[in-house]
Every structure is written in structure tokens, then in C-alpha cells.
């Protein structure tokens, strides 16, 4: 049996009508059982099979956690904001992420200085216009 060096959480699931054993370390390993002990036992048995497959080099490669400072963000934004971001990115030869990061940085500097959102919005527009002018002058 595997020596466990991580915490296993065992909780009752109303939906599945059984105990479920999971850990943060192995998200594809899930134990189920009618008792806490059974769920944990199944977890350990499945973990053994997972580790065996890992040793044999036959685990399916998954995307994994992004590299430091590189996050994948997915969100729904209003259409007019999206158009604005696309347009700015296109004008300035940047990608949409650069525009969003710039906006967040500006927002951060304004919230740190306790300035209001209207001033923030006005300055964002100024910054984008400045960039446009710079790009044209180049």
C-alpha cells in the first residue's frame, strides 16, 4: 500500500449518496464508499493504480498549471468593451491581453490612490489616445 504524505479529505455527498475521498494532490483519484473508511480505502487503491501508470509513463498529458506570471483568463465581457479592446489592440499592434493588463494596472494605481472611477475612465481614454498619437508619429 502507498505511503501517504498528503491530506485526504473525506466528505459525505448528498448527490452521490456516499462518502467521497479526495485530495488536492491527485485530482483524478477519487475514492467512494458507504463509510469514511471504505472511501479512503478505495482512494488509496486507486492512487496505487494512478502511481503505477505514472511510473510506467502512461499518464495522459494534461495542460497543467500555467507557468508563473502566465495565467489563462476566461470571462464574459460586454460586447462594447470587447469591441473597444479589439480596436485598441489592433490600432496599437498589441494583443488584447496587453490592453487588459494596462487597464488593470491603471485601475490598481487609481484604487491605491483612492481616486474615483470616473477619473480612472477618463485617464484610460487619454492613455489610449496618446498611444495612438505616438504610433502615428513613429
Amino acid at each position, binding site marked *: 500500500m502507498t505511503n501517504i504524505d498528503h491530506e485526504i479529505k473525506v466528505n459525505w*455527498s448528498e*448527490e*452521490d449518496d*456516499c462518502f*467521497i475521498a479526495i485530495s488536492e494532490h491527485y*485530482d*483524478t*483519484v*477519487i*475514492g*467512494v464508499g*458507504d463509510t469514511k473508511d471504505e472511501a479512503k480505502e*478505495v482512494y488509496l*487503491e*486507486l492512487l496505487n*493504480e*494512478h502511481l503505477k*501508470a505514472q511510473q510506467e509513463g*502512461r*499518464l*495522459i498529458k*494534461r*495542460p497543467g498549471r500555467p507557468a508563473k506570471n502566465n495565467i489563462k483568463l476566461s470571462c464574459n465581457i460586454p460586447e462594447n468593451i470587447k469591441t473597444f479592446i479589439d480596436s485598441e489592440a489592433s490600432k496599437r499592434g498589441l494583443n488584447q491581453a496587453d490592453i487588459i493588463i494596462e487597464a488593470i494596472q491603471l485601475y490598481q494605481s487609481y484604487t491605491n490612490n483612492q481616486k474615483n472611477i470616473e477619473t480612472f475612465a477618463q485617464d484610460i481614454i487619454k492613455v489610449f489616445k496618446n498611444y495612438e498619437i505616438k504610433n502615428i508619429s513613429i
Partner: protein
Amino acid sequence: MPAPLEEHKFKQLVNSKNYNIRALTKHYEIVDSENNQLMTFAISHKKGGKREIKQIYVKKFLELTKEVTDND
């Protein structure tokens, strides 16, 4: 939220996404065409009851297959 599935229905779902179920010593694993393991799971069955796959496994399988497909 995916519901618990009877064994044969889960097998159909797995096969429909081009994966296979392989029996292990006590439990099961889901593998791709090259025998690489996606996940493991256990089948629950009470006395006189049907063998079923708990919805947490169904949910995890759907989540993983989406993740792998999105990464292609």
C-alpha cells in the same frame, strides 16, 4: 449536473469520446487508444442493486475530456 450512470451507459459515454475502460485488479481505469491513463474509478453496487458509476466520476471524466480536447 451529471447523474450516476449504469455501467453500460458509462461505457458508451467513454467509448463515444474515443476512450476505453480497462479492468484493474479491483477497480477500473479509462485509457486512450495508446493505453495511456486518463483517470481511475470504482464501480458501486449494493446488494441486489445495479452497478453504477457515481456522478462524481462522470463529472470528472467529462471535465478531463474537455480539458484534453481544449488543449489539442
